[in-house]
């Protein structure tokens, strides 16, 4: 599949694999593909940041290379590593042959066949001219030191290995970086990317997402769930539920054969939606009922008009 040629085509492309993107997101993805720049996505957990990379890889028929970040991630697990065991055997062999030419030995030790490719280096490989999608997930989980490794990759799509030389990509990979914003990522890295804040979807889009992703769920239930979650997000809670939680909730309610929300059911399944005890305590009992009544009123009102 070729790259989309317009914003509408981008939105269509995403929709074909079940991702309902807003106009803002479609625009920034189109630009990122068009300009060949990395896309930096920031947003709360569960709003579909990682999903974008998966969907792009799937719809464009590219390989997805994922680099999950964690604290202490270093060159050896992110970029490349030398195969020390094989190198040692090589040294022993050279010794046995009585070869002591240092230049030749170091040339043969640090050769491509001893290089173990990690995700970032793999991403520079484009098989048959089709560059892969590189997903650098939850970048905020690493420390600042790791960001420095990314700078060269992101601006020039190349990696310098001191003992070996420069490895450059023939075709630039599609790079998606996500962050939950548990810390600020350095400006130098952000500068090289297009930035987009992935927010919570509005009611119409969230309903469309549920219908695409959970086609089995009852229509009335989907409406109530969306209205309830939207009301919840407006309220005063510590961690608002993301789209992923909404989908989970729909699945849970569907599994419980629920066709319409009632206060008891909401209370029993709150753990699917809210993940902080403070928030759950606030909702339990009258809190959920109040929102539910309000939501049902709204839906009734909408159906009348």
């Amino acid at each position, binding site marked *: 599949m070729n790259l989309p040629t317009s914003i509408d085509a981008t939105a269509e492309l995403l929709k074909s694999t079940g991702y309902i993107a807003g106009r803002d997101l479609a625009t920034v993805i189109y630009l990122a593909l068009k300009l060949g720049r990395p896309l930096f996505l920031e947003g709360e957990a569960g709003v579909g940041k990682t999903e974008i990379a998966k969907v792009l890889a799937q719809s464009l028929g590219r390989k997805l290379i994922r680099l999950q970040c964690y604290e202490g991630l270093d060159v050896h697990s992110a970029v490349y590593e030398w195969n020390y065991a094989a190198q040692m055997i090589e040294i022993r062999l050279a*010794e046995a042959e009585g070869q002591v030419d240092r230049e030749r030995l170091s040339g043969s030790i640090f050769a491509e066949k001893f290089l173990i490719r990690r995700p970032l280096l793999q991403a520079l490989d484009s098989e048959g001219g089709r560059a892969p999608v590189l997903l650098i997930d939850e970048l905020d989980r690493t*420390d600042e030191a790791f960001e420095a490794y990314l700078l060269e990759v992101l601006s020039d799509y190349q990696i310098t290995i001191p003992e070996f030389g420069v490895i450059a990509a023939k075709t630039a990979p599609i790079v998606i970086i996500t962050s939950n914003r548990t810390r600020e990522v350095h400006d130098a890295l952000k500068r090289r990317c297009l930035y987009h804040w992935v927010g919570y979807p509005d009611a119409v889009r969230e309903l469309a997402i549920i219908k695409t992703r959970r086609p089995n769920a009852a229509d009335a239930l989907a409406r109530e769930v969306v209205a309830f979650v939207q009301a919840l997000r407006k309220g005063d809670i510590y961690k608002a539920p993301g789209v992923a939680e909404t989908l989970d909730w729909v699945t849970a309610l569907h599994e419980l054969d629920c066709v319409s929300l009632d206060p008891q059911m909401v209370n029993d399944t709150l753990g699917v939606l809210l993940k902080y005890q403070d928030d759950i305590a606030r909702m339990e009992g009258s809190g959920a009922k109040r929102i539910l009544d309000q939501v049902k009123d709204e839906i009734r009102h909408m159906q009348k008009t």
Partner: protein
Amino acid sequence: MATPPLTFTGTTGKLAENIMHFARVLREAGLPIGSGAVLDAIDAAQSGVLRERLDFYWMLNAVFVKKREHLEIFEQAFHVFWKKPKMLEQLMQLMYVQIARKGDDEKKGAGYRRLAESMFDKGLQKNVPAQKMDVLEIDATFTASADEVLRAKDFEQMSVAEQAQARIAIAKLHMNRIEIKTRRFRSHASGRMVDMRRSMRQSLHGGGDGIRLAHKAPHFREPPLVVLCDISGSCSNYSRMFLHFLHALTTERARVSVFLFGTRLTNVTRDLNRRDVDDAIARVSGAVKDWNGGTRIGSTLREFNFKWARRVLGQQAHVLLMTDGLERDNTEVLGAEMQRLRRSARRIVWLNPLLRFDKFEARATGVRVIMPFVDEFRPVHSLNSLEDLAASLIGVPSKTKSSMSSVKMSLPNLN
């Protein structure tokens, strides 16, 4: 050893002398300029490639300015010194009048005070009536209220002596810093783990004749620091000093976030990042709208928890809370939010300036509510200088909460 020939004679002699004097002025203002730099500047001035005033400016800039924070002082000094070199004395006189006139509305550039100090005789300084920072109604400063009063604030600029003091204070803190283990490694002769890559490379130096193992050990690093600083009326006497301290801290240490709160919360990390202290503090005072107003510790903490905690409290961040704990808002909110903060911060250090009174009693409900959630309580008995402030933060930090209980016992009426 042959001494270099003195070449400044005739007209260049005058220039060389002026450059020397200019360097002395800068040195007085706190720039570390050695005689070598002065000679470099004279050599460059005599090289004959400088065509105009701007060339001269950038030449001196290149030779004398070695740090970003010195730029402002240099610029001010250059314009004052080289504009009308003959009228230097008159200018100095003029500046003296300006600085002595209190409440001059004219906006002074950053570093102005330090420059002015360096240009006059030290004796003159003593005659200048001591400028206090604008003292508000003394009666009101020790009381806490929840009313939101928006005030702008103009701080007195920092003096050379104060800057030196700040440096010393921070250096002392440096010796007592806590470092935490990271998951990174650095090469270490007696490390317990083998650094394969380095071993491999080293072995090649000897032509691969046997492999000597290189070792590595975990890397230790200071955790991120989040400072929550009270700037309400009851703490107003210290806000200037707090800010100077925080500026020194942000320049010295990586990963420091600073929030100021009174009735609202303001993130001033970016403003404080300006290298020049006066510039930074002018920006901070512009960004904050609630100087010397009331205190709403609970609701501002809540705002911090909701909006910022997840963003800045990662990587085992430590929290430094600078407040007197005089809460007039709902203490229930304060308790809940302190509890939440407790769960997301690895360590909370509370610096309380209220203890300056010998008769301090932790009677204020706010104080009692905060106390159970802090790891370390640092009372400040006298807070007149940055040194006092630093001294209050120095000392071997307790690893457990045990020191807390001793503090509790020493405070009457706590429970």
